[in-house]
């Protein structure tokens, strides 16, 4: 009886028709695919002396992929759906594609010198980085479990290799192996959850799953599925208690890769979480909400408390990025409660954008200073104001922004998050906002500790000759600093994202 269906499964193959493909909507992905092959083949034929050209070429590919994103946004009619609404290009995905491409461009600027001077495999590195960015760009449009899974693996597998990039360095090895083993295990758990979601609803399309789940009447298997799916994604966004890989991987990996993991890869995890939670799991709110609440509260608190004890700047930024992840989770907790519905997406996207600017900026400074001090200790920033006042001022901007001090970008991001959570207007939301407020104060302590070194402490080795900052890192610093300050002073620029109140398909339910 169970296999009676097999005949009609074969019959479904005969009904298959070639889908219509909207080439314009796919253009950003296609440009990246062409770019990956271009860099791969040009790299083969270039001599070692000309490998620097790979970074330039990669940067150009990211900028080229930006063009169709802009044209799509300018035309901006209705959303473009492909494959029966399983791959959607709408305002939400365009903004996120733009964030990923911009962050990727800044990351190329940050990696260039590190790779050149270390004599690492430059061409291969940029190819892997572009593959990973392709996965992220796909993730923003994926509205199907299979598409989300493929995008997640496409962005993760190159990232595992990038974390272990210094292959003779045992710390980089450790970083890669830890990231890999926990990452593969987490995606296996995620898949196990996805298989139950598919099995109990009969579809892999997110909106169909959302339509099939019945609020307040979930099957046991469906509850299990939700728990496994959220657990698997929590690893990707390094939410406590699934964060144990993050500090070690961040510390051991080359610093530009750490920046990549803590900004781009983490943002992609949030995109997957948002799509799944909003489109598929909305009726399972009674399971999703408490789980995300606990994750958000734990992530903020544990990340902050651990960051307080760190003496290594990269490790401190790792824990700080864990706790920032908790803040980004906060609005997701209140989806569909009170008046919070419309502003949830905006709060998360604005936070991701501003977080990308300020965190990439902070890592750029760490790279610039570590080129000279060869140290990752916070004390190595002593006396920075004395010999590199420009870097000191920029570091102040980024740290103050991460701490959420007005009028910088980080403040607008946090303000939006708290406003969304308070709009929900129930006790759970108020308690979460209170935990968030306490954590903002704790966070300020360790960001200020870095600034105290920068402004007040003397240079640890007495070396006060000026730092030479390579022009690519200068460019990265300029982009991130302008972004951080501008979005803080003129928040209207991004608050217009409020036009995007919902994901395509979420309303159609």
């Amino acid at each position, binding site marked *: 009886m169970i296999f009676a*269906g097999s005949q009609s499964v074969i019959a*479904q193959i005969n009904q298959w028709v070639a889908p219509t493909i909207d080439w314009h909507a796919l253009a950003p992905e296609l440009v990246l695919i062409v770019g990956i092959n271009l860099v791969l083949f040009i790299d083969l034929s270039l001599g070692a002396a000309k490998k620097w050209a790979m970074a330039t070429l990669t940067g150009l590919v990211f900028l080229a992929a930006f063009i169709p994103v802009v044209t799509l946004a300018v035309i901006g009619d209705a959303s473009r759906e492909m494959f029966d609404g399983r791959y959607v290009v709408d305002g939400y995905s365009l903004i996120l594609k733009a964030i990923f491409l911009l962050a990727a461009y800044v990351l190329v600027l940050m990696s260039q010198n590190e790779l050149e001077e270390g004599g690492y495999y430059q061409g291969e590195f940029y190819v892997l980085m572009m593959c990973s960015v392709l996965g992220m760009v796909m993730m923003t449009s994926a509205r199907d479990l299979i598409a989300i*899974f493929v995008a997640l*693996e496409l962005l993760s597998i190159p990232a595992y290799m990038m974390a272990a990039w210094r292959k003779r360095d045992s710390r980089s090895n*450790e970083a890669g192996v830890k990231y890999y*083993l926990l990452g593969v295990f987490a995606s296996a758990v995620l898949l*196990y959850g996805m*298989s139950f979601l598919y099995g109990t609803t009969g579809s892999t399309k997110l909106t169909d799953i959302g339509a099939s789940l019945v609020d307040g009447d979930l099957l046991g298997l469906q509850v299990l599925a939700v728990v496994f799916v959220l657990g698997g994604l929590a690893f990707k966004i390094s939410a406590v208690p699934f964060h144990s890989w993050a500090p070690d991987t961040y510390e051991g990996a080359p610093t530009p890769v750490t920046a990549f993991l803590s900004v781009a890869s983490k943002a992609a995890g949030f995109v997957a979480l948002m799509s799944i939670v909003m489109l598929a799991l909305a009726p399972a709110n009674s399971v999703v909400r408490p789980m995300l609440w606990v994750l958000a509260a734990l992530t903020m608190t544990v990340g902050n408390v651990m960051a307080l004890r760190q003496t290594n700047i990269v490790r401190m930024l790792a824990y700080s990025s864990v706790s920032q992840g908790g803040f980004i989770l906060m609005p997701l907790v209140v989806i569909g409660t009170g008046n919070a519905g419309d502003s949830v997406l905006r709060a998360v996207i604005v936070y991701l954008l501003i977080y990308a600017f300020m965190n990439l900026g902070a890592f750029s400074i760490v790279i610039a200073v570590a080129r000279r001090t060869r140290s990752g200790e916070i004390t190595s920033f002593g006396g920075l104001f004395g010999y590199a006042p420009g870097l000191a001022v920029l570091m102040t901007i980024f740290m103050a922004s991460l701490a959420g001090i007005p009028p910088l970008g980080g403040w607008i991001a946090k303000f939006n998050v708290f406003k969304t959570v308070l709009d929900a207007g129930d006790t759970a939301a108020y308690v979460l906002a209170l935990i968030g407020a306490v954590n903002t104060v704790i966070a300020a302590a360790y960001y200020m500790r870095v600034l105290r070194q920068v402004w007040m402490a003397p240079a640890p080795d007495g070396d006060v000759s000026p730092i030479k900052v390579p022009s690519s890192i200068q460019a990265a610093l300029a982009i991130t600093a302008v972004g951080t300050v501008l979005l803080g002073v003129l928040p209207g620029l991004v608050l217009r994202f409020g036009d995007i109140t919902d994901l395509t398909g979420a309303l159609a339910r």
Partner: protein
Amino acid sequence: MLAVNFLILAAVLFSIGVFGVIARRNAVMVLMSVELVLNSVMLNLVAFSQITDSIDGQLFALFVIAIAAAEVGVGLAMVLMVYRNRRSIALDELSEMKG
């Protein structure tokens, strides 16, 4: 019923895999345990595909097979890299960084 048997087998495989990931110290054994978890997923998908009478599950299983192969390729390369540097693939010795 037949369908439940598939799910139970998958659940048993999943549990063995999770146990292996947590309890094993050898990196290759951990990789194999992860493969067990992935196999349980594929079994689930194909069984559900028959139960729900839709082809999506079988397609999903094909994607899982392909991507699992890519993952293991990277994983074995990484284990080899660690072995070259340390002459050991015991995971509990791989802990330079703490705190």
